[in-house]
């Protein structure tokens, strides 16, 4: 099998097992609803400005992702299928397969948060520059998944997985979070597309560096 077709079948396997159990999707969706409801209770009837909204948007995405994205490797460890995967696929195929699956999951998460925000903050969460928003969300979820996947692979080998995952991820993800928050604020404020180009450069640089580094280091994490 070529690298592409085996990566594809790995993603297909993860998607199928996800759709069969819906463990990650259901839990993540409920997490999003809970987090947004908490924010709404805290705000009462205030309509926050765009900076606060963009910040809270990514806070919800970050913590929801941290509750679910590590599952991609943890589930393999729990089911004892790590060895099988090591036998049937090369490490780079495993890495890129898991990376793409996590990117899809992050995108699904972002769609859920966006829809929910549009409904509950109907007055203030209005995306005035959709082009900035879509590019931010696209590049942001790639960068998010690239860091989250390698950290998930590390955490899956450790003892206290649940608490360790956000602790390890936050320092790595903070550059990305600050940049996407910045760009999302621009999209909500209706700034022209060219204003956000600097942010996009950072996002592209970030995910290239992260994917390159993870690709080179994944062997050491994956093989015992």
């Amino acid at each position: 099998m070529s690298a592409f077709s085996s990566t594809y079948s790995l993603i297909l396997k993860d998607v199928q097992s996800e759709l069969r159990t819906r463990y990650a999707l259901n839990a993540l969706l409920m997490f999003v609803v809970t987090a947004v409801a908490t924010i709404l209770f805290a705000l009462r009837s205030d309509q926050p400005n765009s900076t606060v909204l963009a910040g809270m948007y990514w806070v919800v995405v970050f913590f929801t992702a941290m509750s679910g994205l590590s599952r991609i490797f943890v589930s393999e460890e729990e089911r004892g299928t790590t060895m099988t995967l090591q036998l049937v696929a090369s490490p780079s195929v495993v890495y890129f397969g898991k990376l793409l699956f996590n990117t899809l999951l992050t995108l699904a998460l972002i769609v859920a948060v966006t829809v929910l925000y549009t409904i509950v903050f109907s007055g203030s969460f209005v995306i005035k520059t959709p082009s900035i928003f879509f590019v931010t969300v696209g590049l942001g979820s790639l960068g998010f998944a690239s860091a989250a996947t390698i950290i998930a692979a590390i955490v899956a080998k450790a003892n206290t997985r649940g608490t360790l995952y956000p602790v390890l991820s936050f320092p790595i993800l903070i550059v990305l979070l600050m940049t996407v928050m910045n760009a999302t604020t621009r999209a909500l404020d209706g700034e022209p597309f060219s204003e956000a180009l600097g942010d996009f450069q950072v996002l592209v640089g970030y995910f290239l560096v992260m994917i390159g580094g993870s690709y080179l280091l994944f062997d050491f994490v994956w093989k015992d």
Partner: protein
Amino acid sequence: MNFVKYASIILITFVIIAGIAIPLSPAPQSWLEFPVIPALEQKARNIFFHVPVAWTTMLAFLVSTYYGFRYLRTKNIDYDIKSVSAAGLGFLFCFLATITGALWAKFNWGSFWNWDPRETSIFILLLIYGAYFALRSALDTEEKRASLSAVYSIIAGLTVPFFIFVMPRMMAGLHPGAKGDPEGGGPVVQMKMAPNMRVIFFISLFAFNLLFIWMLNLRIRIARMEYERSSHHA
């Protein structure tokens, strides 16, 4: 190593005495007078301590990552001992840099913490060190602990250029050299110190590097002994 030990002790003593005792003067005439820098005044003396400590933090991080990298290449546990010893010192120096910076900021900028880009970076570095040690304590076997923490420190090291070069340009900051500073908004602070201050500053930088080398050597020797002892008992 004895030379390094005594040199660092003597030089740091010299820096403490000279850095604190040399008086300020609006128009310095001799080598034994510092110029008065507007808005900094007596607080300018912190540059002899805060900046070398912050530099040593970065050095310790680089040394730790370098030995982590060597461990991954060779799987020789001695490199992991060196890597974790350097990281422990880096954590200590990072803490000292945060404290000296925060105290200085209280008197110069009015509050202990302002989320200036460099303050943000040192906070993230503290978090990285904290996460690094949390990860190490969550792994049982020493091979796993060594290789996974090495991978983590390299991944964390990949984000450092973003903090040094990208963030200071994106955010307005208070440190010299940040965005909006009339003295040139580059990532590296331009050296515009009086010659005698510069001499003491570089002596201090050199002395703190020696101190780091000496402490690292001590820690590595202790860590090796502990490793030997635990592997004999096991």
